[in-house]
């Protein structure tokens, strides 16, 4: 039985004044996909991802979530269901525990976490109970990214959006974080949409790959297209990145 469609985009465009960031984007993201968006800087990957969390709205075109127009959802509920991990993790002033329980500041009834739940989540992202009392801002980039992941997962999302979560990390750490994301994807039965520029690392994880070049879909397929692109623009981009 085919997986159900989680996101459906039809003819999505996004312009900022005269600048065409995204053009004629139509795609389906199915449940339990591990969907990777690749492409050069400024190709519109992050903007596309932001639209799925409703941080941006398309200039024209439609986005559907579970076959219902995204505008028909309560935005707060939608964002809880579609978690977003940013390129640079933002830690607020305070301990790791305070960072993990940020959501309690505005929604006490849904988000009361016991210490054991928080420790369990920390362990899921490769950290331990000692981190709870640590100053979040003093942690390394990799540790902060794990905390950011844990914070999003505590919301119990069904979709996880990741915007180049390994961009500021060295290749070894990037590999570890991506392995972690892949394990979480399986563990929590998530649908993952990941923006990355690590072609070679990412191909071992991805089920579907889409290349965005100059705001347009250049090529879509499975991980095999990373090694054998059919599109000329994709090939040129991969060759440039490989040098």
């Amino acid at each position: 039985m085919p997986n159900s469609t989680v996101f459906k985009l039809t003819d999505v465009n996004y312009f900022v004044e005269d600048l065409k960031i995204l053009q004629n984007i139509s795609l389906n993201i199915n449940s339990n996909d591990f969907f990777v968006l690749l492409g050069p800087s400024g190709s519109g990957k992050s903007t596309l991802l932001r639209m799925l969390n409703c941080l941006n709205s398309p200039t024209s075109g439609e986005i559907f979530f579970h076959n219902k127009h995204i505008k028909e959802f309560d935005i707060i509920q939608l964002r809880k269901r579609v978690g977003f991990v940013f390129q640079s993790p933002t830690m607020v002033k305070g301990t790791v525990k305070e960072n993990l329980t940020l959501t309690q500041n505005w929604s006490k009834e849904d988000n009361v976490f016991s210490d054991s739940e928080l420790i369990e989540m920390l362990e899921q992202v490769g950290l331990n109970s000692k981190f709870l009392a640590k100053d979040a801002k003093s942690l390394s980039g990799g540790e902060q990214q794990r905390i950011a992941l844990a914070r999003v997962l505590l919301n119990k999302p069904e979709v996880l959006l990741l915007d180049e979560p390994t961009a500021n990390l060295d290749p070894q750490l990037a590999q570890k974080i991506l392995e972690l994301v892949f394990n979480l994807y399986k563990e929590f039965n998530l649908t993952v949409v990941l923006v990355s520029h690590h072609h070679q690392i990412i191909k071992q994880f991805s089920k579907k790959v889409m290349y965005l070049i100059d705001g347009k879909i250049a090529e879509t397929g499975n991980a095999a297209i990373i090694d054998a692109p059919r599109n000329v623009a994709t090939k040129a981009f991969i060759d440039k990145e490989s040098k």
Partner: protein
Amino acid sequence: MTQTFYAITWTDVFVSLIFVAISIGLIRWWRIGLEKTLLVGTFRTFIQLTAMGYILTYFFQQRHWTFMVGLISLMIIIASYEGYRRLKIYHIPNIFWIILGSFFFTVFIVLGIILKFILSVEPWYYPYAMIPISGMIIGNALTSTTLTVNRFVSEINHRENEIEMYLSLGAPIKAAVHNSFMESVRAALLPNINSLMMVGLVQLPGIMTGQILSGIDPLIAVRYQIMIMYMWISTATMVDILVLNLVYRQFFTSQMQLKRELLRRS
């Protein structure tokens, strides 16, 4: 106790030009190059304050509430325009109307409490009470509003990633901007709170000094000053929170998205 009233004459005012002469002398000696500007400032102070004196004398002779309400409204509109002028670089939608509404509300509340419950002025539109107190409230509201909105814009620019992180987790806008809001109000209120701490220890406030020089019993002058200090902090708190509550919403779309293009423009 004998009260002494030092009536200052126009001749005395001209003698006070000796202070300007000292400044100009020092400026020339050190070749700072501000002589012309200082002279213009000296001349403008004389003309503007003299004109204000005659205008106030005319206003103080008026005895009808519609005139007073009209005058205070005009003062609020002018102050709101000044606030708009100082903040227009940020392109915040509706900023003039936000300031105007907040000023009207704050002046109404603060002035009402003073005239009705503290000074028990009869009639309530008695110009000797209404005009100077309104002037102080409006002036204080303008300064505080400018400070707090300036700081808020700077905070949300600085905290853009933090705000979007909050939003992406499903936070309401109010929670997403809470840190920016809090820092901005604190920054605007701290000078006022510091004044509450330091008043009378380092310097005598100008208003109190003026009253004492005019022959008012220092204890009465002190009581006025205390009331004014409390009025200032209340005005600043009220207007800052009111203005920011209306301003922060302007930075978000109806879909609870941060208007990043507005941040770029500001």
